[in-house]
């Protein structure tokens, strides 16, 4: 394998992994054939590919992920509930328990942190929906919980400590 082809194979890493797995081998073959013609024009084109096409492929994959995540969110009964619920606080938009894509995984992680002293029996309004796991709670749910049942600690650091303790106890 020539040095130029090795460099090209290395540069292919700038494409998303899915795209590379699918077409990387053929792109390398094509590059090898084209390299025989003359290299300057080819390298200019490769540069253009890396500047414009590689980011576009990343963007396409991100778009697909977002579409999938939104579809998943809309399928969740709990997420759709605010449209029909008389109490907007209790059934406010809740993050799903298993969001599929990277941007949503952070949200999922945050949404799974149990609030301090949380007990499932204390809040029938939230736990009445089977689609919502007990450990999942929305921000609005926390507000409602604290308003109705038990005031949260005033000090944010203490609240964080308690939430962290609950998180560790949950065997993640």
């Amino acid at each position, binding site marked *: 394998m020539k040095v130029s082809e090795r460099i090209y194979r290395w540069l292919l890493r700038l*494409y998303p992994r899915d795209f590379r797995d699918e*077409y990387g*081998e*053929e792109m390398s073959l094509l590059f090898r054939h084209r390299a025989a013609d003359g290299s300057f024009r080819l390298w200019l*084109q490769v540069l*253009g590919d890396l500047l*414009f096409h590689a980011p576009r*492929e990343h963007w396409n994959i991100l778009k697909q992920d977002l579409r999938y995540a939104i579809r998943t969110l809309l399928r969740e009964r709990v997420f759709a509930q605010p449209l029909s619920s008389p109490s907007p606080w209790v059934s406010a938009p809740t993050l799903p328990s298993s969001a599929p894509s990277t941007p949503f995984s952070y949200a999922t992680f945050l949404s799974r942190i149990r609030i301090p002293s949380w007990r499932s029996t204390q809040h029938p309004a939230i736990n009445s929906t089977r689609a919502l796991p007990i450990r999942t709670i929305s921000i609005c749910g926390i507000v409602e919980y604290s308003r109705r049942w038990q005031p949260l600690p005033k000090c944010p650091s203490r609240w964080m400590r308690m939430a962290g303790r609950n998180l560790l106890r949950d065997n993640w």
Partner: protein
Amino acid sequence: MKKPLLPERPMAPAVFHILIALADQPLHGYGIMLDIARRSDDKVKLSPGTLYGSIKLMLEEGLIEEIAAPADDDERRRYYRITRAGREAARQEMARMSALLNHARLTSLRSNEG
């Protein structure tokens, strides 16, 4: 209501080139590139990223489909064939470009005036 000059969205040139290349026979990626270069007297040579980016898009939109490679060919090569939807899309693009040309011919651009 006045009919718009270009009712459909123009197709990307690379996509149209690929559809033309696949119109008469299935080809692999490199074959597509060679066909396009031959038809354009080496003026159009698609880069690997443009070619396979377009192929991916066209596969997703159902304009082309992948078929089994001939037994005697390199197994790493993947062959593509135009679909019925692809033919229809190419015909629409031809009609769009033809309409555009007809409009252009009605102007002073046709003759060597001015």
